[in-house]
């Protein structure tokens, strides 16, 4: 019997076109993902090959999650079908056993589902042997790569979801369940992802993720590029457990289904039907006379009809169960995402309105679904219920139906947006934050979001009307979304081609909506006019009556072209064209427009043409004196003044190479030298000019270069490209806008793959550590060593303008505020200019003035930052060298960028970090404001006092030392738990970062601007170093290093120099640490395999541990090999403190010489947990198995 039902199911499904369509869609998606850029699912990064097992597995896994939708469609109808087609009575009256019926249907459908799912591996397989693929980015073909993930992930996932959907279809007997459950499960799943993102829960998360994505990530996250290319995804560890759990859950669901399923035709509804009040008919129908009601069909009736229909459709949408399900799912997702709002190293931020808006934008996906789905539903509503002929014969103008459907949907959106605002306010209130900025809520949602919805709704109406088939209409609408992306792929990047383009940009408390409003408005006008044209066309072609053929629709449509409609079409057209021209005039005539291909061509040409000048001898700037005038409300500035250039080489220099800033806003009115010269060559395309001096500049001689730079903002450009440095409030720019000397390497194309495409040689990220050209220049470039600095800077009244140096004069003139800053000591060639409306908090430490310039309302963390400055200055003066300035300032700038940057005695600090962080529990949350402040103050030493050479490893001297310095300040201030937490994040970031290395991982001492090395690994390594050789020894080394190298011009120090100082203070027995930590990539695999204790006598316990320790060395590709171990490693035993927390009762370094070790330790308190390297000082990819709970023996 089972066999018959099973076979019947297969043959029934074989004839269903839907299954082939599902297969085709999934196949095409996957195939396009690997052979084109149009679809992006995961993919390879850097050295990982495009068909590496992990890459393919990840793509298959991601697609298997989205396969949920198909799983629900196939499995849901397995039993439901009988109810839908009213064949249940026939089915259930046959002598089939329930078990056979259910299992036959289930397994039959499941096999079909799996066959459809083979589209994934087949598509990837075909895609990878497709002739257009580049062979050097692929590994040799391996069948396992495609089928192993299929069996490990896809089959169990299909089984589990299939069981759920089968059960819900069979038990609910409602088709609406089938349509919504897939979406719902998917949404709930995506929602749960954000909850599981926190670090602590990785292991649990890997088990409770029904699709195994978390288990997969958890198992593979620290794989190096080498491993990623070599290893298949095995069915073991967390992946195995995860799969077992969820296949088990699927079986359980089937068992429950079997018991809960009743072989009855009628099933009691879960909901009691509402009793209908029946009224007695008192009047006999024959005696009724139909009264004569006045019929008025004029313009004002049309308004009434329009309103009636609008509210009717509006209410109709709200009565749709799938609609309600989508909305609830969307809101749920938001609330779940609100749990971990804006976390940075586990520390939350205040739920400011703009960050809540970011959260609310998560609902946009649901808006898209609602828009596509319900424009289709409404356009087709009357035809779907077959009321169309009646409604179409009503005396109303042709446009009323479409317009009221459109406006009805807009009302729906308005209500939803209002609901979102309520959600946002609730979320804020739940965090105890009561600064509800309703203006920003309304100002963003009812402009940007609503405009987007209006555009897409009108577009979908147009598509539905023209295509005249609901499902095809859905498909075309979605295809349109993809097509817009495709447009930019084929070079049509200009916003005038990007439908609906024009975001409102980033909101900032300082600059509010800034200059983004104007372009936003123009783009909306342009696109709105466009969709109005489409809509008018839709009105003409909309089907009224029973004619569906295009030429017949045109025949009746012609009659609809009355004056108002023609007027609408014409005005739409005029506005579309004229706003288009106006936008084009702004983006392309007033500003320079280049799409990314043009941009790349320019980069290539620049390199090919001018690379020869890269190391040509040039004088260096020794003095800068500028007058800078900032005009925030016009977004302009001018800078006029001079550089003194000195020939520091030992040969005469006869040509001065000047590179002007290439941005189109920047022009230099003049560049003059005080020595006779002529232009010998001018590269206008690159704004590169070579001036020939009549008499060469002799070694040691100087010349003065006068110039005037004008930065003019003309018109507007698209928001995503617009300049966010020179703005209404919160201007912050640096000397990059001024003329510089010689070839600028930063303008080169850096992407290795693109370079290969364009036949450019491979590019080293930095110069070798012993390259004399690199040693001769500092990290700030080769334009200057130390220089004298003076600046007069002015801005509009009400704003404060700030540059490095000390304020020596301040006055007002012609409604402008002027400030003169003078630097008393030589500084580097890197300076900031800032202007904003500021509040100022002042303090003093010794004779150093401390100031924080902040935006009113952002007072939350000022005390912490001030304390951070003080504590940092105390520690650094005491341990390194005296502070070189009499002043330290922090100034807030808008959140268009989220960093803090250290200029001489001046630190611009983004409003997006620190200023709005919220330390809820000082014992648990890392104080990022304090920490970032300490780090930036440390740069006054590491980078400003000691400028390092611009060669490999340079960031170890500035960034790693600043990380170390800040870490030591934190160590003095905060609890051990916080430091541990911080280091755990650093370890995670380092291991995560190296997994996605694009080129090659370097040892710390040769780091090439790799943040995960110089910041994250740097922290770990320096913390361990001070632990092994003592903080004092490290500081001693740094003190000596500073003494020898501070304030020196070229040659500059490198990591090799610094390491000498470290080696000096390191005992012989630990010298290997320097090699392991700085000069090589060394990792450990430490593990406690067995742990037990016995009570020797009262108050004396013997802990026995079996430990495994391995030491690994990785090459630059991440290929690791074991090396012999001769290391000192911590052994720790935890007891319980009085507060009930774990506390270390034993911590001591033991020497390890072999992989497996047994150790016995005597402790006096009752031990609970013990292990190797319990504080994670060494870099270990599986840090969670270092300790183990002790078993009493």
């Amino acid at each position, binding site marked *: 019997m089972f066999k018959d039902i099973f076979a019947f199911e297969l043959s029934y499904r074989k004839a269903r076109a839907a299954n082939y369509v599902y297969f085709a869609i999934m196949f095409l998606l996957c195939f396009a993902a690997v052979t084109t850029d149009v679809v992006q699912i995961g993919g390879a990064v850097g050295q990982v090959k495009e068909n590496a097992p992990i890459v393919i597995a990840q793509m298959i896994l991601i697609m298997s999650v989205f396969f949920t939708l198909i799983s629900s469609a196939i499995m849901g109808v397995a039993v439901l079908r009988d109810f839908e087609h009213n064949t249940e009575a026939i089915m259930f009256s046959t002598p089939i056993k329930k078990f056979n019926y259910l299992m036959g249907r289930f397994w039959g459908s499941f096999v079909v589902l799996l066959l459809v799912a083979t589209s994934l591996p087949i598509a990837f397989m075909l895609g990878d042997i497709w002739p257009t693929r580049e062979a050097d980015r692929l590994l040799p073909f391996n069948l396992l790569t495609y089928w192993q993930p299929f069996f490990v992930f896809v089959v169990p996932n299909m089984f589990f979801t299939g069981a759920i959907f089968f059960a819900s279809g069979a038990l609910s007997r409602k088709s609406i369940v089938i349509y919504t459950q897939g979406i719902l499960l998917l949404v709930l799943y995506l929602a749960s992802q954000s909850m599981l993102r926190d670090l602590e829960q990785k292991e649990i998360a890997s088990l409770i993720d029904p699709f195994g994505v978390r288990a997969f990530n958890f198992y593979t996250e620290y794989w190096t590029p080498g491993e990623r290319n070599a290893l298949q995804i095995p069915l073991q560890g967390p992946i195995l457990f995860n799969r077992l759990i969820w296949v088990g859950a699927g079986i359980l669901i089937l068992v429950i289904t079997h018991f809960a399923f009743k072989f009855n035709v009628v099933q009691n509804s879960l909901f009691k039907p509402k009793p209908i009040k029946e009224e007695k008919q008192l009047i006999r129908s024959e005696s*009724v006379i139909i009264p004569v009601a006045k*019929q008025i069909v004029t313009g004002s009736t049309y308004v009434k009809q329009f309103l009636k229909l609008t509210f009717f459709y509006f209410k109709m949408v709200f009565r749709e169960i799938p609609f309600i399900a989508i909305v609830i799912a969307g809101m749920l997702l938001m609330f779940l995402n609100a749990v971990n709002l804006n976390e940075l190293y586990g520390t939350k931020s205040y739920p400011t309105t703009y960050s809540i808006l970011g959260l609310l934008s998560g609902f946009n996906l649901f808006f898209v679904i609602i828009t596509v789905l319900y424009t289709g539903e409404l356009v087709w509503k009357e035809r779907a219920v077959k009321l169309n002929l009646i409604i179409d014969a009503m005396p109303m103008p042709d446009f009323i139906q479409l317009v009221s459907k459109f406006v009805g949907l807009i009302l729906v959106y308005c209500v939803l947006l209002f609901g979102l605002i309520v959600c946002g306010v609730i979320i804020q209130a739940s965090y105890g934050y009561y600064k509800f900025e309703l203006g920003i809520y309304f100002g963003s949602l009812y402009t940007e979001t609503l405009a987007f919805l209006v555009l897409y709704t009108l577009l979908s109406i147009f598509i539905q009307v023209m295509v005249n088939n609901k499902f095809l209409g859905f498909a075309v609408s979605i295809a349109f979304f993809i097509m817009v992306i495709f447009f930019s792929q084929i070079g049509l990047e200009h916003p005038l081609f990007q439908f609906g383009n024009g975001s409102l940009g980033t909101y900032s408390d300082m600059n509010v909506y800034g200059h983004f409003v104007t372009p936003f408005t123009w783009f909306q006008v342009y696109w709105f006019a466009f969709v109005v044209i489409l809509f008018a066309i839709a009105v003409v072609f909309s089907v009224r*009556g029973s004619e569906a053929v295009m030429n017949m629709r045109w025949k009746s449509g012609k009659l609809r072209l009355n004056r108002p409609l023609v007027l609408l079409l014409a005005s739409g057209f005029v506005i579309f064209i004229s706003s288009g021209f106006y936008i084009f005039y702004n983006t392309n005539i007033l500003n320079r427009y280049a799409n990314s291909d043009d941009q790349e061509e320019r980069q290539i040409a620049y390199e090919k043409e001018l690379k020869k000048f890269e190391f040509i001898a040039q004088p260096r700037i020794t003095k800068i004196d500028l007058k800078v005038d900032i005009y925030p409300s016009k977004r302009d500035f001018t800078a006029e003044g001079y550089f003194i250039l000195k020939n520091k080489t030992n040969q005469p220099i006869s040509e001065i190479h000047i590179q002007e800033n290439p941005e189109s806003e920047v022009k230099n009115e003049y560049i003059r030298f005080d020595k006779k010269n002529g232009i010998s060559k001018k590269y206008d395309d690159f704004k590169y000019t070579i001036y020939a001096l009549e008499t060469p500049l002799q070694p040691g001689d100087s010349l003065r270069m006068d110039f005037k730079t004008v930065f003019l903002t003309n018109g507007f450009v698209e928001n995503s490209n617009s300049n966010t440095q020179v703005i209404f409030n919160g201007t912050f720019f640096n000397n990059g806008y001024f003329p510089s000397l010689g070839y600028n390497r930063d303008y080169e194309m850096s992407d290795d793959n693109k370079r290969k495409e364009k036949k450019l040689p491979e590019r080293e990220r930095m110069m070798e550590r012993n390259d004399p050209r690199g040693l001769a220049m500092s990290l700030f470039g080769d334009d200057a060593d130390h220089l004298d600095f003076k600046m007069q800077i002015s801005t509009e009244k009400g704003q404060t303008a700030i540059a490095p140096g000390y304020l020596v004069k301040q006055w007002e003139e012609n409604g402008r505020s002027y400030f003169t800053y003078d630097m008393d000591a030589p500084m580097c060639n890197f300076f900031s200019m800032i202007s904003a409306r500021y509040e100022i908090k002042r303090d003093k430490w010794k004779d150093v003035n401390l100031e924080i310039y902040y935006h009113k309302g952002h007072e939350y963390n000022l005390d912490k930052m001030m304390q951070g400055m003080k504590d940092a200055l105390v520690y650094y003066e005491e341990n390194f060298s005296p502070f070189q300035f009499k002043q330290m300032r922090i100034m807030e700038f808008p959140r268009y960028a989220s960093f803090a940057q250290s200029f001489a005695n001046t630190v611009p600090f983004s409003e997006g970090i620190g200023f709005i962080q919220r330390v809820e529990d000082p014992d648990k949350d890392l104080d990022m404001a304090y920490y970032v402040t300490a780090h930036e103050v440390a740069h006054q030493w590491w980078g400003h006092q000691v400028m390092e050479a611009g060669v490999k490893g340079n960031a170890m001297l500035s960034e790693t030392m600043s990380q170390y310095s800040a870490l030591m300040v934190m160590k003095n201030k905060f609890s051990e738990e916080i430091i541990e937490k911080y280091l755990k994040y650093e370890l995670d970031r380092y291991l995560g970062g190296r997994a996605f290395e694009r080129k090659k991982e370097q040892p710390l001492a040769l780091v090439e601007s790799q943040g995960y090395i110089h910041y994250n690994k740097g922290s770990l390594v320096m913390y361990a170093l001070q632990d092994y050789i003592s903080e004092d020894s490290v500081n001693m080394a740094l003190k000596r290093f500073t003494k020898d190298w501070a304030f020196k011009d070229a040659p500059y120090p490198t990591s090799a120099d610094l390491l000498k100082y470290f080696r000096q203070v390191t005992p012989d027995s630990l010298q290997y640490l320097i090699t392991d930590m700085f000069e090589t990539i060394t990792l450990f695999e430490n593990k406690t395999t067995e742990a037990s204790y016995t009570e020797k006598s009262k108050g004396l316990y013997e802990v026995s541990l079996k430990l495994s320790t391995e030491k690994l060395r990785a090459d630059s590709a991440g290929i690791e090999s074991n090396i012999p171990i001769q290391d000192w490693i911590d052994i720790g035993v935890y007891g319980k403190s009085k507060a009930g927390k774990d506390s270390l009762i034993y911590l001591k370094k033991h020497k390890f010489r072999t992989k497996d070790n047994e150790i016995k330790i005597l402790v006096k308190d009752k031990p609970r947990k013990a292990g190797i390297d319990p504080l994670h000082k060494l870099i270990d990819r599986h840090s969670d198995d270092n300790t183990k709970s002790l078993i009493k023996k």
Partner: protein
Amino acid sequence: MQLIIDNLTKTYANGVQALKGVTLTINQGMFGLLGPNGAGKSSLMRTIATLQEADTGTITLGDLNVLTQKEEVRKILGYLPQEFGVYPKVDAVTLLDHLAVLKGIRNKKERKELVEALLHKTNLWKAKNKNLGGYSGGMKQRFGIAQALIANPKLIIVDEPTAGLDPAERNRFLNLLSEIGENTIVILSTHIVEDVKELCTDMAIINNGEVLYKGNPLDAIASVSGKVWKRRIEKNQLEEFRNQYTVISERLIAGRPEITVYNEDSAPEGFQKTEADLEDVYFSLIFGKQNVLATN
């Protein structure tokens, strides 16, 4: 006011020629449009109801050109399509009120009275607050009639309205139609001969897109009166009689066929005289071998 249909033709995209030069003049009162399924009745009705384009030909209603002045026609039109549905989650009162607004009944009080009267008239008062999705076929049909009567239409087009009604409902409906049929043009399309016979003063029979007969039902009956004969035969004789006579209808009575034949002169052998009926006219036109009434 007259509805004049002149030489109307329509061919669908799939090549089916639905109307082949239909010419009809329809006066006020009940007009029956009789024809089998697929004869082109609904195509003609939809075209008159402004919902379908014609390839050639004209339709005028008084001074109005129905094919181009659709808006004006719709103001005075009441239309019940052959097949229609309703919004399932809306009750009868709400939807009738909704449609009344669309028809241009602006006064709320008048609208309420109208809706109530229509519900009483169509015996839906009891179920007025029930969602339309739960209506039976007959109830739905009555609802359709109610909506077609909103705003005193001057032209009422009802396409197969009695299909699916039980005999009592059908009677009530026909009575209702006859009440309003006096100074209004009512076009009733049906394939049930009884409907036309009982109600219509004027009629047309169409098949395959062509008008086979137009005129008064009584005249039609008169034209065959005395020329129709019937006989009960055995099943195996059927073929033989078909070849021999102009058989216009066959039906089973107690399991044995009874055939009706058309014969101008006298009773064929074994046949009895029978009272001529409109049905005989209809069947003789639709199935008759000879076009017996072509001259009318």
